[in-house]
């Protein structure tokens, strides 16, 4: 517990350094674009693949479970949609991205630390924490809504794909279900949540990487610790944000 508060204090101090008023130099734009590529664009493929398959599987499970003739068939589409919109395209996607983006950030910054690249930056009078981390945080948070929407769309397409193989639900039922009692706020809710998660993923992983001491083995350990901590933090934040936003 004492350890937790030590980390928390150090993490908050780290954030204060990252979000200091930025120094002017000609490198920011270039840095921002690079990070947009690394954290955002490079996550598109995994988002699409995972969402498509999970969407398909959820849809199959729904139509498998809803066999009672008294329950309308459109419920398959409706429940697939709501599972995707409420939880899957935000929380589950972010947990997967914690593994990809989080460990990537931690190991990148960690190896810069152990190879003294961060010291070199400090010697040049650069706020290294800010220079390295701020572009990552901003670009990942900015790109997150795109990933969430993409995940929703491909998840629903995955469901549609599985419907074409289903014997007891028709595409018309599915599409009716998608439209039935549609609540646009679910999308807003998901996006708000995920932008928070993006902040957690990028800052916590950067924190672990930035304070690595030792060598390559410690960098590996830091990126494992990152994923564990980030996943737990996402789940806790999910609980709190859901309370706050949905009740």
């Amino acid at each position, binding site marked *: 517990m004492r350890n937790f508060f030590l980390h928390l204090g150090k993490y908050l101090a780290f954030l204060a350094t990252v979000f200091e008023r930025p*120094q002017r*130099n*000609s*490198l920011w734009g270039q840095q921002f674009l*690079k990070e947009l590529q690394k954290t955002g664009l490079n996550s598109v493929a995994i988002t699409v693949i995972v969402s498509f398959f999970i969407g398909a599987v959820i849809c199959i499970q729904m139509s498998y479970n809803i066999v009672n003739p008294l329950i309308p068939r459109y419920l398959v589409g409706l429940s697939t949609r709501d599972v995707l919109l409420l939880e899957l395209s935000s929380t589950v996607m972010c947990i997967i991205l914690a593994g990809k983006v989080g460990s990537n950030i931690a190991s990148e910054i960690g190896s*810069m630390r152990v*190879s*003294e*690249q961060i*010291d*070199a930056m*400090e*010697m*040049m*009078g*650069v706020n290294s924490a800010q220079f390295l981390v701020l572009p990552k945080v901003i670009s990942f948070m900015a790109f997150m809504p795109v990933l969430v929407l993409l995940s929703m769309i491909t998840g629903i397409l995955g469901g549609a794909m599985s419907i074409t193989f289903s014997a007891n639900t028709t595409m018309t039922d599915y599409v009716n279900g998608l439209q039935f009692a549609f609540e646009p706020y679910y999308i807003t809710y998901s996006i708000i949540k995920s932008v928070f998660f993006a902040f957690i993923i990028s800052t916590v992983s950067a924190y672990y990487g930035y304070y690595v001491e030792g060598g390559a083995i410690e960098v590996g350990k830091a990126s494992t610790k990152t994923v564990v901590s980030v996943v737990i933090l996402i789940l806790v934040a999910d609980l709190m944000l859901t309370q706050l936003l949905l009740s």
Partner: protein
Amino acid sequence: MIRVEHLCKSFDGRQILNNVSTTFNAGQINAVIGKSGSGKSVLIKSVTGLHSIDSGNVFYDDTNLIGLRKNDRKNLLKQIGMLFQGCALFDSLTIEENVMFPLDIHTTQTRAEKLKRVNFCLERVNMPNTNHLFPSEISGGMQKRVAIARAIVLNPKYLFCDEPNSGLDPQTSMVIDQLIKEITQEYNITTVMNTHDMNSIFEVSDQVAFIYQGQLWWNGPRNQLTKTDNAELNDFLFSSPLLRNKKGSS
């Protein structure tokens, strides 16, 4: 000139440097020597402010680094070049971008002006026409040269080199040492060089500070090095039989 006064540094209660006072002269290579783990790197990093120190003062000519305000500190850092033990080139940037980095941070020059300076420095360290390679694509000796180019690109008054020839073959080491020596004299730089390499000590250093058990155990001009009867220093210098017969000469 850099003057270090009563510098103490500890990590988690473990004293690494104990009351170190010395002077590093301009236009000379001031070698800091000692066994691995004796605290040479910690000394450099404390003197440059990368480590915060427990007590003491570090004067760069008339400016005390300790307690300097942020902006003044940035101005002082602009005059310090540093060559790290592992080169510390940014591996996501090309050689050109690496050497240009300090210019991007500290100057408002146009790209053409910056490029001109970068190419001048790369030529000075004998690495012309390598601008678009990445650090991982060149050898260790070449990485050292690029790191030197990056360290001198802002025309520093002070240059710190942490074991500049660790991991290099003897011949390449000599070339790097000579390069540092030439640059030091050419631009009248105050160069501080950590080393435990006998060649560097005897071939290029002007002043020598010997760190032993966290203390400055011996300090003096290089030509006095072999004439001292400091037991620990002699043990350190003449541990190899090959060098033992060099004792007494210089």
